[in-house]
């Protein structure tokens, strides 16, 4: 992708505001990470951060709902006003803690709100953009909140927020460009036809959000051809790009596929309580959709083979209902999802025996768990004798690896099994998750042998170091 220079945002806005004739000659491109230091100088500030993030997260939540009540064509002016005030208020608060990128986002949103045209064929785009800005602001707040909670009060430490995608920057640049365009629709005849999205980004650090770029180009083109006869196909395309650029909530995703577990459990005389972590993370739809099959697989396996029947559990004096827990966290661009059951766990001896029978490559004792991901293992294993982790785990692993991710398993006999999938995420959005709720994470293959059941059951361990 070609990199072009973008005009200064502020300059664009000023020009747009004064009605100067400015022709957009270049496209805003996704920038790299947005990093910001938020300085918490005292306990009072920290409290302030936690209070204002909560307050605005609530407000955006409410506003998004209000926003969605109305179709794009009839945005309620009072909602627009509300949003304007919220953006303005947030700008002040964000300024108080030095979260400048959030200040900028709010500023741009304000500008956009001020300029919503009464009559435009692009109303849907404005509508989506503003909705998006609300979601993004809310998500940034989640990040700030989480980072601030991770600090030890009342230490005076910098809390470092890294936003993993250029979406925000993109947004602000896009707003600026739209305003410029609005001021002067450029007479551009050659319509830009977006190429098909490439499957993968070559380099992760080059966080070009391809779809966003496409969207930007396309919207710009539409705007510049304001007089041209509107093609519904073009608009459908635009909207579909916008939609696909959006992210999806991990919680919603799991709640929908997790129902399988309880239904399946019931048919097997296993009462299962599925708990899905309720912190909000939204990630790229594509990644999550690609992981759908692996997750269904793991959940089914857990229900089918990992968990005991109710009667067995009563005999073993284990808790009823059986617990199946899905949790996740996002850290430095890696989404880690854990699916954990409190069933019988993997049987090391059975697995090693089986692998010897199958003449699988010898593994050291430490990573015997990796054996269950061997292709040969999965097809021949008799699931039940091996605590049933055999079926299709090789294909699960393959899918995860295709996403440049990794999968690990940990278990303790009689205590349960935990699958941990980690995938890099380009566009990521987190919610504050209290440090004391963070469960064990596996950092790399070497750490896979570290059992999460090493301590007392339910013990929580905080983040350890990064991958070495």
């Amino acid at each position, binding site marked *: 992708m070609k990199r072009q220079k973008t005009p200064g945002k502020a300059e664009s806005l000023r020009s747009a505001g004064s009605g100067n004739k400015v022709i957009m000659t270049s496209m805003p491109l996704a920038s790299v990470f947005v990093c910001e230091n938020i300085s918490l100088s005292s306990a009072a500030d920290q409290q302030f951060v936690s209070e204002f993030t909560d307050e605005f997260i609530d407000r955006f939540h409410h506003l998004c709902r209000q926003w969605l009540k109305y179709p794009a064509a009839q945005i309620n002016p009072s909602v627009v006003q509300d949003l304007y005030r919220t953006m303005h208020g947030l700008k002040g608060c964000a300024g*108080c803690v030095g979260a400048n990128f959030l200040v900028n986002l709010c500023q741009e949103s304000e500008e956009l709100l001020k300029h919503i045209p009464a009559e435009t064929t692009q109303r849907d785009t404005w509508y989506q953009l503003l909705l998006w800005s609300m979601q993004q602001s809310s998500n940034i707040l989640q990040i700030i909140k989480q980072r601030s909670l991770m600090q030890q009060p009342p230490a005076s430490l910098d809390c470092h927020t890294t936003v993993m995608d250029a979406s925000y920057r993109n947004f602000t640049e896009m707003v600026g460009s739209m305003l410029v365009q609005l001021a002067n629709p450029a007479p551009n005849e050659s319509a830009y036809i977006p190429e098909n999205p490439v499957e993968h980004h070559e380099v992760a650090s080059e966080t070009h959000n391809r779809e966003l770029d496409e969207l930007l180009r396309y919207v710009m083109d539409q705007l510049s051809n304001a007089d041209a006869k509107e093609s519904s196909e073009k608009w459908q395309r635009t909207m579909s790009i916008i939609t696909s650029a959006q992210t999806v909530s991990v919680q919603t995703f799991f709640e929908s596929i997790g129902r399988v577990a309880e239904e399946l459990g019931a048919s097997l005389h296993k009462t299962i309580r599925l708990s899905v972590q309720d912190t909000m993370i939204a990630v790229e739809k594509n990644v999550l959709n690609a992981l759908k099959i692996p997750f269904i697989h793991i959940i089914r396996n857990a229900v089918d083979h990992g968990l005991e029947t109710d009667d067995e559990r009563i005999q073993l004096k284990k808790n009823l209902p059986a617990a199946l827990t899905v949790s996740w966290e996002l850290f430095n661009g890696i989404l880690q999802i854990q699916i954990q059951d409190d069933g019988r766990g993997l049987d090391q001896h059975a697995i090693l025996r089986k692998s010897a029978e199958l003449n699988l490559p010898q593994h050291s004792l430490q990573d015997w768990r990796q054996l269950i991901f061997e292709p040969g293992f999965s097809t021949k294993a008799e699931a039940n004798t091996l605590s049933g982790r055999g079926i299709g785990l090789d294909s699960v692993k393959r899918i995860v690896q295709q996403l440049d991710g990794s999968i690990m398993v940990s278990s303790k006999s009689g205590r349960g099994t935990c699958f941990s999938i980690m995938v890099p995420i380009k566009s990521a959005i987190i919610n504050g998750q209290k440090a004391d709720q963070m469960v064990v994470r596996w950092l790399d293959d070497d750490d896979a042998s570290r059992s999460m059941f090493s301590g007392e059951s339910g013990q929580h361990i905080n983040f350890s170091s990064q991958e070495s």
Partner: protein
Amino acid sequence: MKKVLIVDDIGALRKHVMRLIVELGFQCQFSEASNGKEGLEMAKKGKFDLYLLDWQMPEMTGIELLKALKENPRTRDVPAVMFTDQSKISNVEEAMSLGAVGYLSKPFDINKVDHKLHKYLA
């Protein structure tokens, strides 16, 4: 004990300001209102030593509120300090001409808060 009325639509910000004032050692009793209209009602009913008013608020903006306060004999002699954004320093002139005694720009600097409020809270 000085009585302070804080009018700001953002609860977190009201609390933030209160904490700053307390941190500075002033002994105050705070009342809070979350919009201009509510602020005006409270100002009319209560007796205060200082008004702290935000600019952007629903129902009635800070400047409208300031005007109303200055028009009412009951409230006009109470010193009013406005909160402003740095980008809106130009508005300060308007506020001062309407009778505000000062302004505090966001982000709040504890020294400035001390400097500007000391006279009214000590």
